[in-house]
C-alpha cells in the first residue's frame, strides 16, 4: 500500500541531515515530527472523501528528482520575464523550483527590497529570514498548517527548505502589488516542495500576485504550502494565476488565519494546467472579519482542476463569500468542494457560496459538492451550484445578428466568467486578466516562456 511513499521515506531517512543543513533551524525543528506523520498518513488517497475525485497520490509515483542540496539553476528569470505591462507596477520576485531566487547581480531583488525595508517590511527568502529573524518566523511557522492530518502538508513540512517570506509591520500599507513567479525549470522530472509565510500585523495592507509557470516539458510536481496571518484590521489580497502545462501537477495549500475586522480576498484563476489541486482553509478568528474566495478554471483536453475550500466561522459577525466558476471542454474535469462550518456561537454569520459551471462537451465533467454545516441559529447562509451548457437561444440570437457561431460561443463563455475576473481590485491586473481569458478562449494563449502577466 505504501510503495509510492517508500522511495520518499527512504530519501528522508538517508538525507535528513542534508536537508536540515540546507535550511533554517526554525524550519528544521518540526521536520522529523512532520516526517513521522507523513510516514503514518502517506499521500492522500482517493479513498479519503476529500480526495475522491483527484488522484494526487498517483502523480507522486514518478521518479522525481528533488533538489535537496539547493543547487542553484543557471538561469536568471529576471532577464526572461521582463515585466512591461503598463500599470502593473509590481515588486517582482521569483521562486525557481523550490528556492527563492537571488539575482546574482544584486540588482533587481535588492533595489526593490530596499524600498520596502525602509518601511519595515521584510521580504525574500523564507530560509534566510528564518535564520535572520527566528523570533518572528517561529511565532508563525507551522502554526496554521494542518500537518497533523494532511499527508501532502506533512510531506511539505518534512522536505520544504525554502520559499517566500513576507512580513508587513503594524499599519504599513504596501502600495504596489507584490508579484511572485513560481517557475519550474529543469531538464528532467522534478518535484518541488516550497513553503511560503506571510504575516500582516494589525492595520497592515498588502496585495500579492502569484503566477505559476513551467519552462520545460518534463514532468513537474509542485507541492506548495502557504500560511497567511492577517492581523486585526489588516487587509490582504492574493491573486493566483496558473498557466503551466499538461505535465504539471500543482498542489497548493493555503491556510489563512484572520483576526477581527480583517479583510481577505483570494482569487485563483487557472488558464492552462495538468492537474491542479488548490486547498484553502480560512479560520475567521475575530468578529467582523471578512473573506472572499473566488476562482475560475478553464479546462480542455484532459485537464483537471480541483478547488477544495473550508471556511470556519469560529466567532460571530463574520462575512464570507465564495464564487467559483468552471468552463470545461473536451474531457476536462473539475471539482469544487466548498465547506462552510458555522460554530454554535457564531451568531450573525453571513456566508454565501456560489459555484457555476459550464460543460461545453458531453465528456467534460464537474463534481460540485457544497457543504454547509451550521450550528448557530441566527445566521444568513446560502449556497448554489448550477451546471449547464451554452444557452442555445442566446447563441442563435447572436448568429441572427451576423455573429459567427464560434465568436458567439466565445462571447458567451467570456460573459460567463466575467464576474470572477471583476473581483480583482488591481485595475491593471484586472484588464490584463480579461485579455488573457479572452485569448485563452480563442486558443491564442501560448504556454511557453515568459510570464503571460507581463508579456505575450
Amino acid at each position, binding site marked *: 500500500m505504501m510503495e509510492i511513499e517508500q522511495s520518499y521515506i527512504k530519501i528522508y531517512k538517508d538525507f535528513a541531515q542534508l536537508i536540515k543543513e540546507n535550511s533554517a533551524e526554525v524550519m528544521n525543528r518540526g521536520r522529523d515530527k512532520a516526517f513521522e506523520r507523513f510516514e503514518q498518513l502517506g499521500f492522500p488517497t482517493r479513498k479519503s472523501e476529500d480526495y475522491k475525485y483527484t488522484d494526487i497520490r498517483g502523480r507522486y509515483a514518478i521518479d522525481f528528482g528533488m533538489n535537496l542540496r539547493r543547487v542553484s539553476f543557471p538561469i536568471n528569470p529576471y532577464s526572461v520575464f521582463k515585466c512591461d505591462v503598463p500599470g502593473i507596477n509590481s515588486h517582482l520576485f521569483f521562486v525557481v523550483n523550490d528556492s527563492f531566487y537571488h539575482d546574482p547581480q544584486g540588482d533587481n531583488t535588492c533595489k526593490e527590497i530596499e524600498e520596502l525595508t525602509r518601511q519595515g517590511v521584510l521580504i525574500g527568502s523564507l530560509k534566510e529570514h528564518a535564520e535572520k529573524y527566528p523570533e518572528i518566523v517561529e511565532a508563525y511557522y507551522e502554526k496554521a498548517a494542518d500537518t497533523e492530518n494532511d499527508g501532502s502538508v506533512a510531506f511539505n513540512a518534512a522536505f520544504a527548505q525554502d520559499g517566500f517570506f513576507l512580513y508587513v509591520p503594524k499599519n504599513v500599507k504596501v502600495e504596489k502589488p507584490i508579484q511572485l513567479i513560481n517557475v519550474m525549470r529543469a531538464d528532467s522530472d522534478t518535484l518541488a516542495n516550497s513553503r511560503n509565510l506571510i504575516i500582516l500585523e494589525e492595520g497592515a495592507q498588502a496585495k500579492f500576485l502569484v503566477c505559476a509557470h513551467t519552462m520545460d516539458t518534463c514532468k513537474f510536481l509542485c507541492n506548495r504550502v502557504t500560511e497567511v496571518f492577517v492581523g486585526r484590521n489588516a487587509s490582504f489580497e492574493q491573486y493566483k494565476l496558473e498557466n503551466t502545462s499538461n505535465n504539471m501537477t500543482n498542489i497548493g495549500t493555503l491556510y489563512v488565519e484572520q483576526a477581527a475586522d480583517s479583510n481577505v480576498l483570494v482569487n485563483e484563476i487557472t488558464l492552462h494546467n495538468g492537474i491542479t489541486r488548490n486547498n484553502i482553509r480560512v479560520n475567521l478568528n475575530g468578529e467582523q472579519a471578512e473573506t472572499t474566495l473566488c476562482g475560475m478554471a478553464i479546462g480542455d483536453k484532459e485537464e483537471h482542476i480541483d478547488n477544495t475550500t473550508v471556511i470556519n466561522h469560529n466567532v460571530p459577525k463574520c462575512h464570507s463569500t465564495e464564487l467559483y466558476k468552471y468552463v470545461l471542454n473536451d474531457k476536462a474535469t473539475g471539482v469544487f468542494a466548498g465547506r462552510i462550518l458555522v460554530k454554535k456561537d457564531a451568531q450573525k454569520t453571513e456566508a454565501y457560496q456560489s459555484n457555476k459551471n459550464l460543460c461545453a462537451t458531453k465528456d467534460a465533467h464537474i463534481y460540485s459538492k457544497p457543504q454547509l454545516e451550521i450550528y448557530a441559529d441566527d445566521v444568513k447562509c446560502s449556497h448554489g451550484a448550477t451546471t449547464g451548457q451554452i444557452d442555445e437561444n442566446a447563441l442563435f440570437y*447572436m*448568429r441572427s*445578428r*451576423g*455573429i459567427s457561431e464560434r465568436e458567439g460561443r466565445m462571447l*458567451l463563455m*467570456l460573459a460567463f466568467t*466575467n*464576474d470572477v475576473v471583476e473581483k480583482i481590485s488591481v485595475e491593471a491586473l484586472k484588464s490584463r486578466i480579461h485579455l488573457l481569458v479572452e485569448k485563452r478562449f480563442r486558443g491564442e494563449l501560448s504556454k511557453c516562456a515568459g510570464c503571460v502577466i507581463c508579456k505575450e
Partner: protein
Amino acid sequence: MLEIKNLHANINGKEILKGINLTVKPGEVHAIMGPNGSGKSTLSSVLSGNPAFTVTEGEVTFYGKNLLELSPEDRSREGVFMSFQYPVEIPGVSMVNFMRTAVNEHRKYKGLDPMSASDFLKLMREKKELVELDNKLANRSVNEGFSGGEKKRNEIFQMAMLEPRLSILDETDSGLDIDALRIVANGVNKLKSKDNASIVITHYQRLLDYIVPDFVHVLYKGRIVKSAGKELALELEEKGYDWIKKELGE
C-alpha cells in the same frame, strides 16, 4: 428580392408549414396575419435559420441566392433581419460589445474594414434616438433587466444599426402599450426605403394602422389562404378568423 416557393417545414416531426408561396419586392411591406398555431412564428424562424426547424420541401431565394443553404449568421450578413417576439437576455455580454461585433462581422463579410471605436459609438448614439433608447443602454448587458417595451425597441435599434434589406418583424407589437407601439412603429417607418422591405407578422390590426402594409396575407394551418391589400386587415378585425375558416368550407 425574396421568393418563397412551396415551403414545407416541420419541428419535432410535426409539419407546420404546408406549402408557403410568397414574393416580396424592394420597397414593399407585407403583413402576415393568422390565428394561433397557423405557423406565423415558424415561418419567421425558418427564414432566419433557426436550427430547431427542418425544411422538408420547397425553396427560398433571396436576391437570387438560396437562403436555406446559408447559416443564420450569413443570412444576417446578406441583409436579413429578424425582430424576435421574445428577445432573449444575455447577461455578461454588453450591448456595445454585442453590436460592435455584429456590425464588424457584417463589414468583414462585405470586404470592409472594422469600424473605429469612436465612429461606432457615434453611430450608436445616432440610431438610439430613432427608438428613444436612453444612454444607460450602452453599459447594460443585452436585454438584461429590460422591460417588454424596451426589449422591442432594442430590436428596432439593432435593425437600425444593421440596416437590413429585408426585415421580419415577428409580433413586434405583442406586449406593447400604445406609446411603446407608436415609438416602435415610428422607428420602423423611418427605416423604410425603396430598397428595403418588411414582413410584419402580427395578430392585431392595430399595428398596421401605424405600419401600413402594401399586402396582407392570411396564414392558416401552414398555408397562405388569402392575400389582398390593407383593407383585408380591417375586414379581419371586423369579422375575425372564423370568417376565413368558413370561406374555406370548414
